[in-house]
């Protein structure tokens, strides 16, 4: 995180970008069969809840679609948005590779977060795992 980012705004410019212009969020209700699985993480007490929907290509196991919704603060919204970008860019990541994404990878991509915000905001990978587990069971 460069010091000028912090001086100008509470979060990095990358967080700002994803917070004000979030990518890949699902505005309407999902249609039947549109996604393979749905996952969730977080709770009301901590103040962040995220839901994700994923669609996997059965042949290549690549993530074709990753949609989300987040109730939470700027860093929670930005973390979810940036994760959706990470797993769908360049034709989509393979499911098993995407499952290896850690909080640290998300943090790097966001150019950092205030330390105390990390554990409560970066929950999207957990929501994603939650969804992936449901695919495994199918």
């Amino acid at each position: 995180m460069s010091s000028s980012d912090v001086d100008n705004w509470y979060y990095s410019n990358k967080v700002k970008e994803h917070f004000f212009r979030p990518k890949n969020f699902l505005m309407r209700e999902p249609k039947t069969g549109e996604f393979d699985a749905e996952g969730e993480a977080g709770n009301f007490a901590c103040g962040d809840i995220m839901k994700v929907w994923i669609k996997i290509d059965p042949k290549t196991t690549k993530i074709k679609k990753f949609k989300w919704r987040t109730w939470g603060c700027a860093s929670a919204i930005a973390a979810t948005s940036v994760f959706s970008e990470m797993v769908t860019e360049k034709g989509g990541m393979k499911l098993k590779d995407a499952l290896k994404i850690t909080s640290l990878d998300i943090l790097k991509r966001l150019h950092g977060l205030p330390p105390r915000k990390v554990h409560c905001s970066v929950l999207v990978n957990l929501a994603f795992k939650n969804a992936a587990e449901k695919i495994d069971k199918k």
Partner: protein
Amino acid sequence: MKKRIYLDHAATTYIDSRVKKAMGEFLIEKFGNPSSIYKEGRIAKQAIEESRKRIAKIIGAESEEIIFTNGGTESDNLAILGVAKRLARKVKPHIITTKIEHHAVLNPCKFLERQGFQVTYLDVGQNGIINPDDLLKVLRPETILISIMYANNEIGTIQPISEVSRIIKNFRNRQISNKSKILNTKYKIPLFHTDACQAPSYLDINVKKLGVDFMTFNGSKIYGPKGIGVLYIKKGIEIQPILFGGEQENSLRPGTENVPGIIGLAEALKISQKEKTRESRRLTALRDYFIKRLLSEIPNVFLNGHPKKRLANNINVSILGVEGESVVLYLDKAGISCSTGSACTSSKLEPSHVIMALGRSHQYAHGSIRFTLGKRTKKSDIDYTMKILIKSVNKLRNISAVKIKI
């Protein structure tokens, strides 16, 4: 800089230009230390004593009852810890406060609990106001202090201070007649402190009418300087200092006096009293207009705190389906400053204890937004804020995982 609409006057206020003017010469020309006996010192001494007199007169007190501190937090600490240290000789001293106090009151109380004191935290009703009868139930012979804020900083609710002081006086008198005086003091206990930091611009702050033994207020909430506060201590009451050093402020608050701060506070308090009636009326109308628009134009918005028994400048609502920090930052981007009780903006990541004390769920606390109006606030500012807020809430609700039925 782009024009900002500042709606966070409960956090702090800008300095009134008349206050700045009054302070000016005490920054450079009249810089002396009031403890010095030569001319520069005498000038400074005279200036702070005149300010003390003016402040005392405004709050219905005497000069020697005014102690200058470095702000509201220090005044609260001095009252609570000062009484505790003075009266803690006997077993299990007891303190009563409320669940919605400022941390400057709650945290000294928690500290004392760890030292073996007993502390009762009174509940408030869903409207954010205590029930004075609850106090009656928890007063004990060993209660040494009651600390109840005059007006809440988050939800603006006004506590029935005069009613509370009557209850305390009756209790004291019964204690005397029962000869159950367990602490050897010249004055009657329990003592009564109120944190009135949010009050001076809008409410009657006469200590006699309020019936308090201690009252805290400061400069930074009344268009005066930061770093200056007052603790009113009723004559005859002894407390112990919490800082040790020189003999300033009746040996209760050592350290070279903040002369420009004191001058500024006295001027700010004077102006606040002169403009109170008119400004309260103006802001009450704006407040009610804003609340009405918030509740009618955005679905699932709830007012926190009593609709009328609240400060003229305070609006606090919970907007369900969105999180406070996100709303604050969307408004900030559009040039509007306000605050939230969401956990995300607190350093401990805990949601507002005040909103939680209203008996509402976490979602209400995380979605709470406070707007506090002030001298520069105009109706057009509120109209602009409504426009931006509606847009921001719509967008954040669209991306929110918490779907509320509208």
